């Protein structure tokens, strides 16, 4: 009985796959339809970031429990070039042709917790969590 589900992301089509998986996992954990949509949307954003910047990576879904609260953690990993200026990347409107767009700050607004671990040449790990209310 897995508490973790990992989805490899290496193509356009995998973005949809990651979304679908997100919806299924969130639904099974008891999130409302609305919360499930928010999670799936955030997953779509980070999965797309992986494709655009690193070509391949993975999205993992983990069930969480802490002090009686249950939640879902999504971890998007890639070994791409990493983000050189994280502060700017987290600003809205930083959407140059380079395409960092609204992916990160947008996803952060959709989730309860949001942590980015990245460095040039070290790849990127985005860890975002939503708690069942």
């Amino acid at each position: 009985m897995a508490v973790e589900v990992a989805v490899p992301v290496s193509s356009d089509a995998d973005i949809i796959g990651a979304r679908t998986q997100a919806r299924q996992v969130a639904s099974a954990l008891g999130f409302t339809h609305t919360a499930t949509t928010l999670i799936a949307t955030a997953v779509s954003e980070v999965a797309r970031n992986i494709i655009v910047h690193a070509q391949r990576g993975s999205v993992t879904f983990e069930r969480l429990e802490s002090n009686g609260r249950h939640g879902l953690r999504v971890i998007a990993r890639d070994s791409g070039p990493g983000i050189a200026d994280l502060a700017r990347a987290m600003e809205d409107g930083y959407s140059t042709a380079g395409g960092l767009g609204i992916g990160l700050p947008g996803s952060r607004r959709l989730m309860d917790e949001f942590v980015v671990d990245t460095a040039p040449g070290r790849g990127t790990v985005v860890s975002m969590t939503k708690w069942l209310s």
Partner: protein
Amino acid sequence: MSVPILKQGPNLIASIQSALSDEDLIRLRDNLAAQVGQYRSKGVVVDVSPLDVMDSFAIRTLRDIAHTTKLRGAHTIVVGIQPEVAFAMVQLGLALEGVATALDLEEALSTLGALPGAA
């Protein structure tokens, strides 16, 4: 997965059937631009009702569709955004500003029919 585009008088109706990949979305945008030019359409309705998620790429593409068709003389209306999707969009911070929206196809056609210059 190609999106079927129906010509109805001066209007084009694009009915999205299921989740679209990035490629499908680009193709939709290009097809609509071409057909608006070809048929000199006055109105375009994009029906997104089956979509249960719309991320930033999809939203940006819808905006692009509205802009490119406008450049060719057509007014675009997006219809069928689901309640939860609308909610996610405003949370995301992408609320399709500047793009007309309506509840459904019926409403959109009614609006297009009432525009000056409509057939």
